[in-house]
């Protein structure tokens, strides 16, 4: 290592001159230009029909490989002996290998994730307790952009061993609402009110048909599941309008939604 260090310092101090600076600059400019051309060709040919995350990942790989080669070429140009460097690389390799076990695991996991195609850039996914839009796919991790505009980095290794729910994979979704109604309620009436709500709401799809299920007899009421289909981007509008419609129609038709009551009594009450 000290041999390499001495070699670099000696060469830098002794050999730097204007022609070398020009040569290095030219190599750098031409190298970056060639690298961009290679990326363009790869994008237009091999990656032409690939999805966004494959493109992002391969582009990063091409960039890293390209810059590594360019770095070695420039080292050669400024007179650093490659054999010395390679000798040291063996020792460094072991050190880097031990240090980068996790990173390597992340890279490999990343490739598995890409081939699985469980999500794409722009999809809304839930990983554990985190939900957000896939913002970018890096070599070691993915970036999730949350709805309140935070960026979360999730390492690929965590992703591969966790359940991922892709919320926006398909063009339409179903929103299921659990609705509790009092035991005295006429369930036929509830069914027809909910049907009317599903038909009248313009942002709901009339096919596939809405879903209605009397699910269970709970402690304080009858549990009903009401599911409606909608275009995936309308989630918030659908949820807000649907809950509002249900509340209004239930009030109009005197359908009780049971909830827990707390009765507070004063000590002076003789009960």
């Amino acid at each position: 290592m000290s041999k390499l260090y001495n070699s670099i310092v000696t060469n830098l101090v002794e050999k730097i001159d204007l022609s070398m600076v020009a040569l290095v600059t030219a190599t750098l400019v031409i190298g970056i230009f060639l690298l961009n051309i290679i990326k363009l060709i790869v994008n237009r040919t091999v990656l032409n029909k690939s999805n966004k995350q494959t493109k992002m990942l391969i582009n990063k790989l091409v960039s890293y490989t390209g810059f590594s080669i360019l770095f070695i070429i420039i080292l050669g140009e400024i007179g650093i002996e490659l054999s010395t460097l390679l000798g040291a690389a063996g020792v460094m390799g072991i050190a880097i290998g031990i240090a980068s076990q996790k990173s390597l695991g992340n890279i490999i996991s990343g490739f598995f994730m890409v081939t699985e195609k469980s999500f794409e850039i722009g999809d809304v996914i839930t990983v554990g307790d985190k939900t957000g839009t896939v913002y970018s796919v890096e070599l070691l991790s993915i970036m999730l952009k949350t709805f309140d505009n935070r960026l979360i980095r999730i390492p690929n290794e965590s992703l591969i061993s966790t359940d991922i729910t892709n919320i926006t994979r398909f063009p339409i979704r179903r929103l299921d609402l659990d609705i509790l109604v009092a035991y005295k309620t006429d369930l036929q009436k509830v069914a027809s009110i909910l049907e009317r709500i599903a038909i009248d709401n313009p942002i709901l799809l009339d096919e596939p048909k809405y879903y209605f299920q009397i699910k269970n007899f709970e402690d304080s009421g009858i549990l009903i599941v009401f599911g409606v289909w909608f275009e995936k981007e309308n989630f918030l509008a659908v949820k807000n309008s649907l809950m509002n419609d249900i509340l209004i129609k239930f009030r109009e038709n005197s359908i009780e939604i049971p909830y827990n009551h707390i009765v507070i009594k004063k000590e002076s009450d003789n009960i």
Partner: protein
Amino acid sequence: MDNLETFNWGKINLSENLKIELKSDQILEVLKEGNNLYINLHKNGSIIKNRFIVPEDVDIELSPSFPELPIVIRSASKLAIFPGERLNAFVEVPMLLSVNTIIDGKSESLFEEPLGTLSKSFFGNTENGELAYSLETPLYSNIEDYKVNKLMGYCPISIINKSNSIMNFDRMILRVPNLTIYRYPDYLAGSPVHVTFTSFEQNNQSTIKKRNPIQNLKPVMIYQPRQVADNNLLRKSFYFIKTIYNG
């Protein structure tokens, strides 16, 4: 104020502001000041304002158009077609009003407003189907059986059952964005659509005819299809074959 029932579709003269009643509670206003074009829609007591900066000598036209999504049509009554038999019918489709610019003969839509109500639906399976509008129709064989009005488009469809069994008509997709609009004295009509049914398991062929929808009357073609079908015959056939009756 103009009324759509009596309005002649086509280029409009904007030396005076145009006010046109779309429905009982909707008024469309088009006005031009220099290169500013204002298209305002008065709806339920509020105004939706649109402003466009256009070339001063631009031509503006008002035209009807079919909805931007295909329509899944369902028969209002139970309908079955026997083997070898053909159903000829008309589908009544609510139109949209389009305000377009015409520059070098090319029409560009700036504003659209539906003149009727269509509910959104989905055709196909939930993984890879497509968004569509939904319409229940009596599928009358005579156009006169409808209460014909100028805010609707009447699309002639013809379905022939070439299978060996009775075809129970459930629903089919009508790709209105691919239809041309023709104007007759009393109504608007879309290009005729011919469907050949072979079986529910197989994809069935559908073709859009490039001819007058109603043979014995001479119409004026007033609006080209929104989406031009692919010129490649194979691709075009596959496109229609694939999606006609697999919902």
